[in-house]
């Protein structure tokens, strides 16, 4: 799908729900999630449990301004955010830099996930190298177990998996 079409779709849908945004992004009708082995499902760091009611209220206020939150306490990331972070542009979530985890360019999941956004994983591998002049917030991983660990470790982070995964640190984004 054309990158500009995706961006335009995201731009026109600033007040949509995250599910609606996701369905626009993938140009697929909303339907029950039963992914095939090679389908890429975007996952995000799970938000921490609020320690008090006051903090929960404060978070709700934040999210009215900055983003959205679901019952699974996932980060809410727009398509524009997603593309920006994988292009190594700074994206802030509650005042913190969003991290992006990715697998090598030849991984089938990478082709599915990043290829669909028109992004080039080869250039990400270059930007993630330690010899880069400016450290990126891109993190290269080698398999799905590594991807889960990366999303959990680099909070707040986004990545992709072949199966819907919900645990204490990782949940689907959309």
């Amino acid at each position, binding site marked *: 799908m054309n990158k500009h079409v995706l961006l335009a779709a995201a731009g026109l849908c600033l007040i949509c729900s995250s599910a609606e945004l996701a369905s626009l992004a993938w140009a697929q009708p909303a339907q029950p999630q039963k992914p095939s082995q090679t389908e890429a499902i975007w996952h995000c760091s799970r938000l921490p449990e609020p320690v008090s009611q006051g903090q929960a209220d404060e978070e709700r206020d934040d999210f009215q301004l900055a983003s959205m939150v679901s019952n699974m306490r996932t980060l809410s990331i727009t398509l524009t955010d997603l593309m920006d972070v994988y292009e190594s*542009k700074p994206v802030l979530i509650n*005042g913190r830099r969003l991290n992006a985890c990715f697998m090598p360019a030849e991984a089938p999941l990478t082709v599915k996930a990043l290829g669909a956004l028109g992004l080039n994983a080869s*250039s990400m591998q270059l930007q993630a190298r*330690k010899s880069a002049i400016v450290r990126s917030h891109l993190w290269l991983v*080698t398999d799905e177990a590594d991807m889960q660990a990366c999303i959990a470790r680099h909070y707040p982070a986004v990545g992709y998996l072949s199966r819907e995964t919900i645990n204490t640190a990782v949940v689907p984004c959309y």
Partner: protein
Amino acid sequence: MGSGLLQAAQAQSDWQLQNTLQTGVDAWRVEHSAFDKTSRDNMYLADSETRWTYRPLSPWYTLQSQLDWGPHDQVVLLARANQVTGASLDQLYYSHAISPYLGFRAGVADFRSTWCREYDLDNPWIRESDPFCTNYRIKQPFASAPALQVYVNLDWGDYQVQGIAGIFRPRALGYAPREFGTALLPPHVSITQNHKQGLSLNVLNKASSTEWRLSWMGLDQGLFDPQASLSFPEYAAGTQLNYRQKADTFFAGVSWQLSPRLRSRLTHMHNDLKAHCELLTPQAAPACVTRVGKKSTVLELNYQPGAADTVSLAVLKFPFSQSQVYKKTNQSVSTSWRRDWDKHWFTALQWSLSRATVFYNDDFSTVSYLPGTITAWATGLRLGYKW
């Protein structure tokens, strides 16, 4: 604290600590056509000029830590240990981003002038071909040091442009009090100056993933030798001298995608050092003048048949000359296969063939290398694990 609790604590605070540790063992078998230590050191293989006593089976680790305070501030630490370079703290600096486009760093930092990959998680090599990356003494003038740096980070369409400029003071904080070019100084010599500067520009086309880098490093070093006759037998006892050396080093690199699975890169690094000494007792001998040049050119191909495998081929040419005394040229061919297995394990298998040719131009007495051509080959296996 368990990792889950640590993650939870970090998620609710302004700071975040991120660590990546790689560790493992390397096994090497190295065969030489010449057996003296000088000739073996001259081949730039796994057993060349190791800082620790060379062993065919040796452990290693690299540690990368990054502590973020909000979006603008971070502390970065890079440390490693292996028998080639010994234990080293390669980076420990504070970085502040004034904006997404501009920032500065203070602390132990590197020049960001090369594409050496010792910390990269997808490094296909056990030991890279370029002596500027792997040989402790050759790398020393360009190694990390206490520094102040300013960087820019710009996006223009498909291009990402990053640049950095810095000044380095290796003797500050006691970091490298005896570093003096590639020399190993005797204890009676005192260093009077060690100043370095560096500039580096990196351009990446994010659409084609073609990347270019241009860098310059300059050094200005001085020492005082109160007993020059100990190091230079041609000087009379009691001779004192001031020694000054300046060097410029340039790096140029380009890396591009030949096909979706095949990537190539070509790098060239050129170091030109000019030195002279001022004899404080001039009747002892004429003042010395030395010029040393090193150039390394590496052409590399990296083929990725799948996400878990990388097959690489590298060809190196490394000429070295010292004034009118002698010159030598190293050439090597290396190939490797890296595989990332499940559960964070990885292996790399490498084979290298190295050939060195030494020529004398006039003075046979001051160099220890044997003239002629010598060859050596090495086969290595790395078993690694990353957390």
